[in-house]
């Protein structure tokens, strides 16, 4: 922990020979408004030359009170707030939240809906990894990679826009289903976008993965062993880069993941390059999942037929009093969820994203807590950068993929 003490003793620099030289170390604040601290985070650094002696990570600059706001909203009204948790992959948050509520309701959604959720989640996952790696590469100086990856992300966002009507903040899922079915001709668009994205990934693979400078900058930088990663509470690509093949999609399959064939990429090294490599491979796996899911997409409804949960069709609302009443009650009072508590986790882009919901029988969640993978990642940042160089903070921080909205909620 970093303390600023009046009249402190001079710091000590240890030479390789073991001698101690008194030095005046530099205390410097990195962030909250710093180009590499995407989102807003502040790292108080104590530097000996360019070596980080001690660091203290301050978060909370983007705390927006998600949990308080969700206590004031009905269950479906919470959805837009979940969009803005991990704003790079909002659809995974949507899916995670509704799955938690459906667990409380003991609701089984139709197969087609489950497949749709998988499809949109995986598109989101790719776009999240693209953004993460793009930002990481840009901060290391490879600016062109950034633009190429954002270009690839644009293909995926066009798809998302096609499905949900919005580019980023989608609110696509509903309790008991999804908002609407896929548009016509989606399969063709998907396969074209996936091909373009895969091409882009391959291009960057050639430009960056074997680039000597990039390799040197990230290999053996920010090494985190499996045990230390677990002790920080890390999950997701960062844990998998340390050698633990833990993935919620495989461990506790939800939606349709148990019917799809994919692999969990892992690395042993646990450094920034391993995290980069795992993310690259995960994007390819996601493309594989998407192809399977699109091929095996079952026919049927996309919402449950239970009118205690889903809104009636517009025709009923306009032409029958029962439909109107039903609509009114659901909108004003919300879906009534029986009292109880439930935790449901999905594999977010950064790791296990869980929602812990306590219901009290009304239409609003009594307590809605998001277990964000990012908070655990962020608390492992300080021990990881201590002792490394100032420039190493950038690849380490970039490979952790700090998303302020998710960490600080």
């Amino acid at each position, binding site marked *: 922990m970093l303390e600023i003490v009046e009249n402190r003793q001079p710091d000590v620099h240890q030479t390789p020979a073991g001698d101690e030289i008194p030095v005046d170390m530099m205390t410097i604040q990195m962030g*909250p408004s710093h180009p590499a601290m995407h989102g807003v985070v502040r790292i108080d650094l104590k530097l000996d030359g360019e070596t980080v002696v001690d660091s203290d990570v301050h978060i909370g600059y983007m705390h927006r009170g998600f949990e308080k706001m969700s206590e004031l909203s009905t269950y479906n009204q919470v959805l837009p707030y979940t969009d803005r948790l991990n704003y790079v992959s909002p659809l995974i948050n949507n899916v995670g939240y509704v799955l938690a509520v459906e667990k409380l309701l003991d609701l089984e959604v139709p197969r087609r809906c489950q497949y749709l959720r998988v499809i949109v989640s995986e598109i989101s996952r790719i776009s999240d990894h693209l953004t993460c790696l793009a930002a990481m590469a840009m901060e290391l100086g490879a600016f062109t990679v950034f633009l190429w990856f954002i270009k690839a992300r644009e293909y995926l966002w066009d798809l998302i826009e096609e499905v949900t009507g919005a580019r980023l903040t989608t609110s696509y899922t509903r309790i008991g289903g999804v908002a609407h079915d896929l548009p016509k001709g989606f399969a063709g668009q998907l396969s074209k976008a996936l091909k373009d994205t895969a091409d882009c990934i391959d291009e960057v693979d050639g430009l960056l993965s074997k680039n000597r400078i990039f390799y040197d900058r990230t290999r053996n930088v920010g090494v985190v062993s499996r045990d230390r990663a677990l002790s920080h509470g890390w999950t997701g690509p960062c844990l998998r880069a340390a050698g633990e093949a833990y993935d919620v999609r495989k461990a506790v399959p939800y939606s349709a993941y148990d019917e799809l064939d994919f692999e969990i990429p892992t690395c042993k090294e646990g450094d920034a390059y391993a995290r980069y490599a795992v993310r690259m491979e995960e994007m390819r796996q996601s493309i594989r999942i998407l192809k399977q899911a699109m091929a095996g997409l079952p026919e049927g409804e996309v919402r449950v037929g239970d009118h205690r949960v889903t809104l009636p069709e517009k025709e009923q609302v306009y032409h029958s009093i029962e439909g109107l009443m039903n609509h009114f009650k659901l909108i004003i009072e919300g879906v009534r969820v029986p009292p109880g508590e439930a935790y449901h986790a999905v594999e977010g882009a950064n790791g296990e994203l869980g929602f812990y919901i306590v219901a009290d029988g009304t239409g609003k969640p009594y307590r809605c807590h998001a277990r964000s993978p990012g908070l655990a990642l962020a608390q492992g940042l300080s021990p990881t950068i201590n002792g490394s160089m100032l420039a190493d903070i950038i690849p380490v921080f970039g490979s952790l993929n700090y998303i302020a909205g998710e960490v600080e909620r």
Partner: protein
Amino acid sequence: MFDGGFLTTQLDKVIGWSRKYSLFQYPFVTACCGMEFMSTACSHYDISRFGAEIPRFSPRQADVLFVVGTISHKLSPVLKRVYDQMCNPKWVVAFGACASTGGFYDNYATVMGIDRILPVDIYIAGCPPRPEAVLDGLLQLQAKVEGRTTGESGLVQTSG
């Protein structure tokens, strides 16, 4: 010709023109809107066409402060300080609903619009605004920059 302010008005025109096409931005990116900000800067929408692609992360060298995303009370002193550090003439763009009004985060943590802290020149609506809306906002800002030689706040709203 020389007494009627012809030279000064022409000079103002030239200066306004140069400022208009040389907007170095300070991206104060905090939240979701940053993703759309990235999109605007990148290949598909390419903000560089308007000469505004150079981000200067030093407030001294920036002309326009893009406040992108929610500003919480904890962050507000930082934003204020960045604004104070900028050199005149300077402009402020409130990017997205949260920066403009606080958005739907009407609670204990969030500043309800950055205009409670700074004077704002352009508000870009949307949660987050689409890149097209951002470009529209930029064009409006350019019109405003060209119109006067010193930055003073007014209220220009763009549809988004």
